[in-house]
């Protein structure tokens, strides 16, 4: 078993699934000859040819719109949007079509589409290259939204996403693309959609996070060794793994949610609303949010101030534990 980083794990998943299922096609800007601007699709063109690994023109709505047409007629497209900041252009096709085809046609048609999007900050990038934009997709009924935090999960979740008969938005934390390696088995395994993962057991405070924030929270926990933290990596943002959240919060009575997306109507809000609805009587302190501010992600000179970091998270854990 090889130690792979996340880019390699996703690449492996694509290689294996394309080998196995001839209906899988990969498409997007620079995904073919170039192998993707992050090299995620490297080697696919050579192996599977230009009918299945498609360099598209520069048009995000066109990519998703044509992928929808492919999906309803028997292919399983895995479309790449080069950076999350250009995904706004796809919202219309996703909200008015991809997410509704099964519903509107009452099952006559469905849309097995995966849209991969590198997302998030902390990589000293240009404007629009550091955003976290999950809310736009979580809020659209009919989409699923997935976001791995490790190479192992990335492969397993991507395979589940491709095999899912409905459209899945697959966010890839570019900050973790090459951040570390771990054992990633070759061959088939999946991580199910809709199931989060408890990373540490704890009794004092539940910390909920996903994607690139998982590592930040792991570092934060190191700073508050005296507090027993139950750390949850959601892995799927829609549909939410409510049981995992509620079981934990009912036990700890305290919770911190961490995300890099702006605070207002970031997923933290929904998690708090659900805790309020389902675990109200267990709650001993207000749920705290450590998030991006309600501003556009600043350019790199100020980006570190914008992002949640281990110290911000640690402080929130301390305050919540001490409430």
């Amino acid at each position, binding site marked *: 078993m090889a130690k792979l980083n996340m880019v390699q794990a996703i690449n492996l998943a694509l290689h294996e699934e394309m080998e196995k299922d001839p209906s899988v*096609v990969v498409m997007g800007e620079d995904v073919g000859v170039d192998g993707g601007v992050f090299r995620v699709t490297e080697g696919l063109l050579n192996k599977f040819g230009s009918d299945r690994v498609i360099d598209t023109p520069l048009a995000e709505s066109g990519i998703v719109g044509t992928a929808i047409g492919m999906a309803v007629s028997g292919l399983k497209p895995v479309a790449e949007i080069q950076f999350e900041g250009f995904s706004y252009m796809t919202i219309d096709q996703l909200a008015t079509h991809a997410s509704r085809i099964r519903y509107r046609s009452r099952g006559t048609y469905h849309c097995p589409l995966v849209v991969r999007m590198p997302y998030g900050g902390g990589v000293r990038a240009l404007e629009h290259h550091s955003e976290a934009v999950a809310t736009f997709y979580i809020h659209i009924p009919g989409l*699923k939204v997935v976001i791995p935090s490790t190479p192992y999960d990335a492969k397993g979740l991507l395979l589940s996403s491709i095999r899912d008969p409905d459209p899945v938005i697959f966010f890839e934390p570019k900050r973790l693309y090459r951040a570390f390696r771990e054992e990633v088995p070759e061959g088939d395994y999946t991580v199910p959609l809709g199931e989060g993962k408890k990373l540490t057991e704890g009794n004092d405070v539940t910390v909920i996070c996903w994607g690139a924030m998982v590592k930040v929270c792991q570092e934060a926990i190191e700073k508050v060794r005296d507090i027993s933290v139950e750390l949850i990596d959601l892995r799927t943002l829609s*549909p939410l793994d409510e049981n995992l959240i509620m079981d934990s919060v009912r036990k700890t009575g305290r919770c911190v949610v961490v995300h890099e997306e702006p605070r207002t109507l970031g997923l933290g809000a929904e998690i708090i609303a659900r805790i309020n609805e389902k675990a109200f009587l267990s709650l001993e302190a207000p749920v705290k949010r450590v998030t991006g501010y309600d501003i556009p992600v600043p350019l790199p000179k100020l980006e570190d101030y914008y992002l949640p970091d281990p110290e911000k998270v640690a402080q929130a854990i301390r305050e919540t534990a001490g409430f």
Partner: protein
Amino acid sequence: MSVDWLQVLDAEGNVDKSLEPALDNKTLEKFYRTMVLTRLFDDKALKLQRQGRMLTFGSCLGHEGCQIGSAFALEPDDWFFPYFREHGVQIARGIPMKFIYIYWMGSEDANMNLPPKNFTVAIPVATQIPHAVGAAWAAKIRKQNIAVAVYLGDGATSEGDFHEGMNFAGVFKTPTVFICENNQYAISLPREKQTASQTLAQKALAYGFEGIQVDGNDALAVYSATKAALQKAKSGGGPTLIECFTYRLGAHTTSDDPTKYRQNAEVEEWRKKDPIKRFRLYLEKKGIWNQSYEDNLVKDCTAEVEKAVEEAEAYAPVVENMFKYVYAEITPGLKEQMDELQSFIAKRKEG
């Protein structure tokens, strides 16, 4: 760079023999019947709407030439991607009128019964275009010898999705036929204000493929152009944009008042070019049509329409379908919301 113009039948039903497609009488009768049926379907829909028995409805009055002409050029195995005014194409493609009515009466359940290769109606203008290109592209990738017809209005040519879809079609030489029903208006906006290009057909030049303008009130011209484009598509020649030059004789929809933005005289001019009238004259000249032929036909078609309406109005939608078709498998959250609604309904019934 240039754009051709095609007309086979003139407004008086005279045929240009050199261009006349080789269709037997039975087929011509089917053309005519479907046009008449479409008009009766359409007229009934307007009446139902006025009585509050239907949603807002966009009449296809005047479009029968482009719709039936193009639809009959398609093979059953070719894909059809409609926008929202394609009742005639839907009927020609064999979608039972009952379901078309159920849809416009306000239930998605209608679409449970779409025959294969007929996609659902796209309400947001132009968004269906990339789908059609994708479906054609998929057929090409999978080496299926089929083509895809996608319908759009003159207004749709202004949308980004038109552009992106057309460009993909050009680059990947997808077997797509773009059938633009240029009915001179997008709601109130006249064609000249929609775009400064002289024709819509020439927009294809921007994508490196052929555009052609046809008389959209001439079912034979539309048939021939579509047939040729489909053949080209299936033999690897790539996409074609067909601009059907026609006119919306009715209001945009039942919510629209066209007297706000166009003169009656203009409408009257176009009435003279009615696609059904000219086809009737053509059939008459061929010795197929006479008044009793018409009377029988209208009687038959009317009965068919009435029956469809009756069945449609008898249909009662299923509340659970709102929740059950969002995903292949209902999620726990949606199950909870469905239960919430059902217990609410139960409580309300109790008192």
